[in-house]
């Protein structure tokens, strides 16, 4: 059960710990820290847990029962496909040095996981762990979009679209922020992916929902969630898994990771209550879908801020995102008339934007945050944050539109009206979600 390599790495650790090198030297030659590694192994499992089963249940519960399997299948297939593409070239494009293109995108030096072996480290953790942790982000981002065009997209089109989107949108934008690209250089703060993950997915989802078109019967027919029980379970799993997402983004088990977990909990609870009370006030009753959606809104909004703000900043971000996403999902959607089936735009894009901007405010040490960089004011940090948001939105809209047109030309984006009526489970997979 023990590999040979173990002896080796154990030995190394022992040697390092016991040698008398000074702290300064230790800083230079990074060594593996078992505590950090333990946490990152766990965090990786938690983020995978967010997509399958978490997100897939959250979404499956909200669609009609004839489409329940189809959204779960989409989440599952995305998980598999993104994993493979990430290993083949995605990781490299996002995190490898891009040479002369470094500002915009990484290179192919790490394609096929070249150079990622048992001994290679990334900070104090094995690079293999860093690569797979990042892979789980590259999985959940496209999977989030599934909610926007649920109940009508072709499965084959989905696979094509997601493969292209990972390559041309996710990988570069991740590089911009985390891979040494221009947004990171600019000083944009995005601790765990408010911009890279949530705005990115929310905007692309909206574009796709509009291009693919409304579901038949929307918005006059009631399309009630077929099982809010599943949706609540999914929301709970997202919440639990999100600790891995946010506290894991510290890549270490330290005080910042601890605080990231704390603020995640606080913002989420605050946003969930805010949405619940807003609905209670507006419609006379608090709904289960409402509290669950509010929780996700809070999770999204605290994501970019999680390593930077303090408990009271988190409370404020929670309340504001609860209100903001409630209005976007309930009022704005109806006013504008687009059919973002499960409110990917209303929750992820809007929550992500609120969080990204407010990160620039509550990072201020005066407001309990980790503190702004030398010589940066709140106003200028908010400006940087806005640049990140706008740049991501513009790039995302343009490229997503092009990719959708290409996929539409190749395989067609949408099932026929009759197929939509019958339900995607039978039509695309020859299966049914339930035989009870």
């Amino acid at each position: 059960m023990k590999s040979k390599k173990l002896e080796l790495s154990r030995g190394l650790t022992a040697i390092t710990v016991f040698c008398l090198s000074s702290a300064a030297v230790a800083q230079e030659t990074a060594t593996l820290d078992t505590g950090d590694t333990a946490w990152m192994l766990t965090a990786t499992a938690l983020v995978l847990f967010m997509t399958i089963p978490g997100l897939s249940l959250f979404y499956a519960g909200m669609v009609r029962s004839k489409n329940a399997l189809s959204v779960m299948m989409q989440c599952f297939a995305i998980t598999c496909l993104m994993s493979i593409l990430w290993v083949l070239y995605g990781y490299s494009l996002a995190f490898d040095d891009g040479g002369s293109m470094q500002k915009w995108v990484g290179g192919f030096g790490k394609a096929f996981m070249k150079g990622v072996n048992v001994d290679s480290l990334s900070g104090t953790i094995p690079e293999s762990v860093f690569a797979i942790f990042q892979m789980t982000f590259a999985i959940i981002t496209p999977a989030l979009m599934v909610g926007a065009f649920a109940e009508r997209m072709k499965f084959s089109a989905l696979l094509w679209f997601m493969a292209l989107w990972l390559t041309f949108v996710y990988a570069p934008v991740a590089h911009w922020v985390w891979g040494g690209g221009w947004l990171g250089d600019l000083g944009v703060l995005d601790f765990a992916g408010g911009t890279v993950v949530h705005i990115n997915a929310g905007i692309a989802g909206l574009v796709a929902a509009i291009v693919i078109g409304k579901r038949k019967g929307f918005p006059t027919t009631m399309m009630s969630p077929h099982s809010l029980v599943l949706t609540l379970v999914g929301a709970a799993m997202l919440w639990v898994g999100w600790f891995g997402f946010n506290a894991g983004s510290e890549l270490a088990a330290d005080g910042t990771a601890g605080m990231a977990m704390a603020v995640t909990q606080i913002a989420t609870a605050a946003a969930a209550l805010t949405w619940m009370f807003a609905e209670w006030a507006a419609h006379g009753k608090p709904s289960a879908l409402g509290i669950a959606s509010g929780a996700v809104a809070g999770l999204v909004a605290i994501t970019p801020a999680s390593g930077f703000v303090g408990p009271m900043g988190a409370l404020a971000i929670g309340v504001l995102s609860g209100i903001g996403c409630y209005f976007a999902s309930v009022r704005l959607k109806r006013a504008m008339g687009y059919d973002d089936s499960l409110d990917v735009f209303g929750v992820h894009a809007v929550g992500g934007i609120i969080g990204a901007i407010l990160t620039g405010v509550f990072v201020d040490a005066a407001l309990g945050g980790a503190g702004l960089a030398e010589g940066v004011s709140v106003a200028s940090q908010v400006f940087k944050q806005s640049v990140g948001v706008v740049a991501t939105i513009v790039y995302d809209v343009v490229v997503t539109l092009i990719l959708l047109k290409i996929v539409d030309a190749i395989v067609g984006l949408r099932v026929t009206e009759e197929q939509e009526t019958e339900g995607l489970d039978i039509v695309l997979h020859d299966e049914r979600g339930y035989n009870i």
Partner: protein
Amino acid sequence: MKLVTAIIKPFKLDDVRDALSEIGVQGMTVTEVKGFGRQKGHTEMYRGAEYVVDFLPKIKLEIAIDADLLDRIVEALTKAAKTDKIGDGKIFILDLEQAIRIRTGETGKSAL
């Protein structure tokens, strides 16, 4: 013979079954149905939109009986199913030409 069909409120099922058993009804068939009528449906909420659901859960009973028992059964049924609130339901009576017990092949009254 008659085929009595009754649409009742779901939570009245046990009361009705007991009332019918008491007057000697030995069998019946029950179906979960949804009813649309004068009774107002409830509201359901979805993303802030409220939808009125017109179809309410009801229970349909089908009871094949000897014509002689008809009055007593209707009376017992009515009494047991009544709440005096709108939506209590209906009783429909059809003529039943023939009944057969599959197991024995018996027909007519003795099949019930």
